[in-house]
Structure formats: C-alpha cells, structure tokens
C-alpha cells in the first residue's frame, strides 16, 4: 500500500517547477518534505491532488500501484488521498458540519445516518479539542489561521484517508495552535495512514517525528535521510544544502 511519485515533471503556464521527483510513501510511514520557499513543495502537493493549474509533462503518480496521474481530484479523494491546504478556500453559506457530511457521503454508497455522523463528528471534535459551535460556522469564513488549520485536520479525521499530504499546515500558527494541530496529526497517525508533511520549518517536526526526511531544492529532491536530517537543517539552515548541491553539480 503506497503512494508513489515517479520521475514527476510539472509545469505551470510560465515555467517548469518539478524537474523529476521520485518519492514513495507507504501506509504507516510519516515523511517530511522540506525545502526553502519556491523549491516546488506546494506544487508537488497540488499535483498529487490533481489541481488543474499544474500540468504533468512527464512521470506518474501511483496509488497502490494504480496510475492516478490523470484522475479528477474528487476521484483521488474518494480513493483515499487527502490534502490539508496551506490556504484553504472559503465556502460561504456552507457550515462545517454540512460540508463534512457532504464529504463523508461522497465516499459512501448510502448516506451516513444522522446519528452515526453525529457520533463520529463529536468524537473527532473532542480528539482535536474543537469548540462545539465551530461546526455551525460557514467553512473558513472569518476563520483565524489556527481555526482554518484545525478545520483541515478535522476534515482529515472525518475522511480517514490512506494518504494525507499536509501542505505547510504549521505555517502561520502560534505555538499553542501548532501543538493542537500536531496532537491531532499524531492522534490520526498509525498503521492505516501514510503522511507527507510539507514544511519550510522544522518546528512541527519537534512534535510530529517523521520516519523519513526529504529535502527539495529547485524542483528536485536533493537529500534524503532519517529525522536527524531535519535536526541538521534546524542548526544549519538551507544554505548548507545549497552549497553542497552546488558543489556537487560543479
């Protein structure tokens, strides 16, 4: 059971952003993808999810061996892929609860009963320490940065994906909010889910310990290792990698 990225090349209207990325995330594993701004991390997340603004020019995305490179975003989602957005869209007039029910039902043949849905929702809200009134608000409308991220994690908890990509979920959070989000991710981690945490900073990795760390630079993964690689980055910053990669190329 894996999410496999093979020699992925991606461009937007203007330019090529991913220049051959290979990455395998198996269920039960937690990976961190790190890199400076503009290195292509968010492009990878969006491409995994099928954002129509990104064009795959070469390579493949495989979900449990099945090629999903051309699949619609909603097909990928129903197949078990999830993405927590860095900047989630606002959905006016649709409450968090109604949105969650719609999303849960999208994966099911028969709609979930009101009772069962209520039970699962309450359990997950407790797990993520979400205020009960939160779910009657319109999704992301007037939400603080922390509330948006928490709503993303609540959706992840309700949808129980096989593979979750967290795109800069830690950005813009104060330490309390970061801890709550990290606790949520830890609570949902397990043998049933593979997680790819995309981050610029190392601080979320102090709370969610990754099994593998990949470093992306200019559209390529240039270093891979265990959690110690993140610790190294924490001390040295990205310049160290830039110099090493630059030297290697020369």
């Amino acid at each position, binding site marked *: 059971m894996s999410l496999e990225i093979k020699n992925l090349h991606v461009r937007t209207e203007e330019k090529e952003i991913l220049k051959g990325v290979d990455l395998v995330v198996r269920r039960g594993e937690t990976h961190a993808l790190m890199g400076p701004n503009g290195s292509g991390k968010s492009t990878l997340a969006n491409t995994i*999810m*099928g*954002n*129509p*603004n990104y064009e795959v020019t070469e390579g493949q995305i495989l979900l449990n061996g099945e090629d999903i490179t051309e699949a*619609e*975003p*909603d097909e*990928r*989602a*129903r197949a078990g892929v*999830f*993405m927590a*957005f860095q900047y*989630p*869209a*606002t*959905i*006016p*007039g*649709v409450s968090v609860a109604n*949105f969650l029910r*719609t*999303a849960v039902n*999208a*994966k099911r043949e028969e709609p979930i009963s009101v009772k069962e849905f209520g039970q699962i929702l309450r359990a997950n809200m407790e797990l993520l320490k979400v205020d009960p009134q939160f779910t009657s608000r*319109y999704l992301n409308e007037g939400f603080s940065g922390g509330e948006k991220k928490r709503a993303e994690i609540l*959706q992840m908890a309700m*949808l129980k994906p096989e593979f979750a990509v967290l795109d800069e979920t830690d950005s813009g959070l104060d330490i309390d909010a970061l801890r709550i989000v990290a606790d949520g991710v830890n609570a949902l981690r397990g043998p049933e889910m593979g997680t790819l945490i995309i981050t610029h900073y190392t601080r979320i990795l102090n709370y969610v310990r990754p099994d593998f760390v990949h470093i992306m630079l200019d559209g390529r993964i240039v270093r891979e290792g265990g959690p110690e690689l993140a610790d190294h980055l924490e001390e040295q910053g990205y310049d160290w990698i830039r110099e090493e990669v630059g030297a290697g190329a020369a």
Partner: protein
Amino acid sequence: MPPSFLEERRKAALEVYEREPIPTWRRSGFWTTSLRKLRLDELGPRRYDPVASLDELSPVVTDALRGEELAGLIVQRGASTVYTEVDPALAGQGLIVMPLEQAVEEHTELVERWYMKRLSEKEGKFPAASAAFWTGGAFVYVPRDIAIDKPLQVVYLIDEPGTAQYAHTLAIVDEGSKAYLREYCLAPDFEGQALHAGGFELYCRPSSNVKLAHLQDWGAGEVHDISTKRVEIAADAHCGWVPIYLGGRLTKQTLDIITAERGADMRHNGLYFTERDEHLDVFTTDLHEQGHTTGDTVFKGALTGESRASYEGLIEIVHGAQETNTYLQTHSMLLSPKAKADAIPSLIVKTDSVSASHGGTVGEIDEEQVFYMQTRGVPRLEAIRILVEGYFEEIVQKLDDEVLEAVVRERIAGKLTEAAAEVEEYIAQR
C-alpha cells in the same frame, strides 16, 4: 355599483394608460428593458369559475404551497378569484382576507383609507393599466394587537398563454400586530405570451412586526411581469421583506420600502436566478422619510444561459431625516459566458448626520473553491451546486420559513442541474 373613489381612480388611470406609449427603460446606454416583443393586443383578461379544491388548479400551486396550514388564502387565476379561505378563529378576531373587489363593497371605508396611498397611476403605462383594469385582487387586514404566525397567502396564477392579468394586493397590518404575508406569482411552463401587471401595497402600522415574502416563478413561458410593490413602515414598526425571483421571460419591477416614521426598521433581502433568455430588471428604493430609521438591503443573483439581470438599488434619505442608519449591498454570480449582470447601488442623501453605505460585486464561482471541494471527494458538479446554494443561503435563511426555503432550494438545484453542462464548461474555462 362600485364606490365613487374607486371609479374615479380607475378613470384617471385609464386616461394615463391611453395617453402613455409602451415604455422602454434605458439606463446609461448599455442597459435597456424593451417590450418590443410583447404583443399586448393579443392578450386579454381570462375569466374562470371558482374551484372547490386547489387540486383542480395547475399543480404549480400545490407544489409551492405544499399543504401548509395557512391563516388565509386567496388564489386568483387570470382575472378571477377562484379560491378563498380564512381561518375562522382569526376571522372572529377581525382578520380579513378576501378579494379586493369584495372588500371594496364590504369594507369600503377601510379600503378607501389605504387604497393606492403609496401607489400611483401616474407612474407610467403599466402602473396605470393595473390601476385601471384590475379585477379580483387581494385584501388583507390584520387588526390591532394580534399575532398571526401562520402565513397569509396570496397567489396569482397564469396558466394559459394569451392571458393579461391585472392584479392588485392591498394589505394592512394594524398597530402592534404581528403577521406573515406571502404573495406568489406562479405559472406552469407553456408556449406563448402572457402579461402580469401588478400593484402591491402593504402598510405596516405603528409597532407592528411584519414578514413579507414574494415568490415569482412564471415558468418557461413568455410571461412578462411589470409590477410595482411598495411597503410603508410606520413608527417603531419592523418589516423584513424577501422577494425571490425564480422565473419570468421579462420582469420589470419596482420595489420600494419606505420607513415613513421614526423608529421604523426595514430589512430587504432579495434573490434572483435567471436562465435561458430571461430578462430581469429590478429597481429597489430604500426611502427614509424620517430620521431615526434603519435599513439593510442585500440582493443576490445568479445567471445562466443568455439571461440578463439588472439590479439597481437606491438608498434615499430625504431632507431632515437625520440619525438614519442604512446599508445596501448587491452581488451577482455569472454561471455562463453569455449571461450578463449589472448591479448598481446608489445613494441620494439630502441631510447630514446619517450613516449610509453601499457596495456591489459581480462575482463568479472560483475554481479554487471547486478544486477545494473536489479534494474532499465531492464531484465537480455537486461542488458547484453546493457553492451556488451556499452563496444564496444568506438570503434563503432570511425567509425563516421551512416550507418556502425548501421550495427555493429545490428550484435552484433544479435550475443548476438543467444548466449543468454549460455551467461546468464555463467554470472549467476560467
């Protein structure tokens, strides 16, 4: 023999009607509402016999009313009142719900006091036409100090092409009372032309609390609707008015809400959904005649097909009406490359010490929102439907009326399904 006040008013109206040409409404060069396709000579009043049950009428009536218990009901088909009922207990307390024709005879003084106090035959050919030619009509009088929660319902039905329907509704909610009034304009789909020229007037007396809903759903036929609706709110009274436009070949409506005395408060929340080659032209005025009055207007629309919709919303605060607080905003959502929306909020303020502001947007569904919902497993088309429903939800909830809310949501969902292919293609291209 009708009372002389009515005869005089009809005579004056007929003179205006005969003198005035068929109007064309133009604004700033690029918006025109023209009646050149309306073959007025081919249309005429149609008379019908009363029915014993609503089931004998076109199903659009029962589809909209859904068997809900009502405080009173008047159904006018073409030129004739075909069904009337009123809750006997409430009638015992003084509630009057009857055709205006009958009220003119039976409650002459009351009708004379209010009839066309705020409407005028001088406003043009069609206001004159409805004032001169109306038959049947609706009269609703809620006496002082009673609370009626169940809806007071007026229905105008057109179900045959060739119909010219001249309508007049007069409603008064007297001091300290609470009431909910609904006026529906309905037609099944048919081929051919019809006209509805209507006058509507509601007087909210001091300290009354009135909810008002208009539902217009003229179906896919060529129904032309040229109407004027006015609401006057007296001291310390409140009126929440929700007009809903779900269909009509050509609609030209003037909606005015007048806070006439201190302490009057109005909430005006409208929505429209136009499709195919429909043409909608709505002009609302939020007129503050006295100071210490408050207002809030929100109008939202969505357009598919080659439809055209113009919403013009004016806040007018007259000289001396200080300490007025009012806000107007309008939004329209394009769902087709060939649809055109125009939103014009404006202000005329002739006094100082007021708070008045307005805003308008012409928006479109954001691909980012659609993608976001798709990443949650929601198929594209359903995502679009949910986004459009969500966009209207702010207005629909203002109805605070489960039955009508369900009707509106279902109708909007149906329209989106009908336009699905076109809407999807449009959003994908953006």
